[in-house]
């Protein structure tokens, strides 16, 4: 590998099937990277030490800041399943807050998985642990519970950059929240990654098209990291 993929970029790996599969870095390791794949994924059948042919790095990853203008306050927002996609950002700024949302307590990641510099905010949609989700829901919370929304608004106001890895069906609502809190958000203030099959990785096959209110984009070349505000409802 000439170069390791950065956060949100991907490698197209030949795992023996008829099409390549996208591998995203979850942790940079030396010159290479660790990746998290679902159970049963082709990559789990690889033997340790196996050589995998890869193309990449491909795609537009998370864009933290122009060189020379480092950011101090980074907000990460993840669904529990998409959390590994944000792994390479856990130490990307002096102050990192990570909001993780899961359906229920059992699906939350163990807090010891994170570097001590990451400040963790846990959210469950059933209120079984941490704040009560969903993230974008407002209104009074049942007794003994606190709404995630209130906390999220604070964090969005605080952050210099917001990086999101969640179910894309949530992006319109999250975009609306950012727009409400920040009024005139600049381009790339909030960025969101979309994970879809990307068989060609070259903008050729149209399998990875993502519909946004601003028209269709291809995840492999226009993304997979988009400006969250592209998803803002018209």
């Amino acid at each position, binding site marked *: 590998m000439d170069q390791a993929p950065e956060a949100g970029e991907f490698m197209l790996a030949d795992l023996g099937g008829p099409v390549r599969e996208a591998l995203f870095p979850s942790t940079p390791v030396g010159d290479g990277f660790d990746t998290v794949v679902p*159970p*049963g994924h082709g990559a789990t059948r690889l033997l340790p030490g196996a050589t995998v042919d890869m193309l990449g790095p491909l795609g537009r990853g998370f864009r933290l800041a122009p060189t020379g203008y480092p950011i101090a306050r980074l907000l990460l927002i993840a669904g529990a399943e998409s959390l590994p996609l944000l792994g390479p950002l856990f130490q990307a700024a002096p102050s990192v807050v990570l909001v993780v949302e899961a359906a229920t307590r059992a699906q939350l990641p163990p807090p010891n998985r994170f570097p001590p510099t990451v400040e963790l905010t846990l959210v469950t949609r059933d209120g079984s642990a941490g704040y009560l989700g969903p993230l974008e829901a407002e209104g009074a919370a049942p007794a003994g519970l606190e709404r995630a929304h209130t906390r999220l608004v604070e964090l969005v106001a605080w952050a210099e950059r917001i990086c999101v890895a969640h179910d894309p069906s949530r992006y319109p609502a999250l975009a609306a929240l950012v727009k409400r809190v920040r009024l005139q958000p600049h381009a790339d203030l909030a960025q969101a990654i979309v994970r879809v099959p990307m068989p060609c990785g070259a903008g050729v096959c149209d399998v990875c098209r993502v519909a946004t209110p601003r028209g269709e984009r291809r995840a492999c070349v226009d993304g997979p990291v988009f400006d969250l505000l592209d998803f803002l409802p018209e």
Partner: protein
Amino acid sequence: MIELAPNHKYGLAIDVPLMPASGAFGYGDAYGDLVDISGLGAIVTNPISLQPRQATQGRRIAVHEDSFVVHTGWPNPGARRVIRDYGATWERLTVPVIVHLLANHTSEVARAAALFSAVPNVRAIELGFTAAASRKRAVELVTAAAVEGDLPVIAQIPFDRVDDLAPYLARQGVDALTLTAPPRAVLPVDENGEDPGVARFGRGRLYGRALFPLLLNTLSRWAVKLPVPVIACGGIASPDDALACLTLGAAAVQVDALLWRDPSLLDRIARALAKPRAAYPAVTHLLSPNEPETEENV
């Protein structure tokens, strides 16, 4: 030099009998340095319609064992936008551009063909048909493209319509035939992908090694027999595969979506095909489609 449109006033001469199939290569610039376009015979564009088309929603690919199906709805920005975005790129290419048109309505095909005729280095139109297109309709579409476009017209024949459409279109004046467009297929969906549990089957155009034995059969039955050049397409995955197609009488080959796995396949085939033609192996144990069949020669 291979002439793919010997009956057309301009012809369509290519140096190497090799090109990507429509849908496998984008509009020419997608693979950048990964593919040396000047080593190909031509490029074939992704399918284009006169008006812009959007992608279908829902699952668009299903992979199972050695095959995959793709179902996208042929999204594209429409003919005018494609010309604006890629016209200059095409002009700089040292190989001809073959524009693939989605053959839906005669009037749209005619207008799109006329637009592309005026673009420098666009040297032929390839038409893709729906599987249900009647003979009559197919001829109307070919005629519309030929009359308005002034360029050679290649028809890409639906997988299960070869016996019916190929000889007919060849007689009715098409300049060359691509055998074939991918068949429709249904695959069980491996439940380990992005959306477990959502669907058990995916339908779409079939790609993979599965197609190759069926392509060779089609070629062995038709390539020599048809009065126009035949371009082989379907499951070609190695230089040997390409040579096998030429041995069976194809004038050129198209590499389909298998090149996504291995873009270097194009360069490797190009090198193999650059060797002198006499080196191609000869057919021995195969009945020529023109010979009568007997117990002995089948």
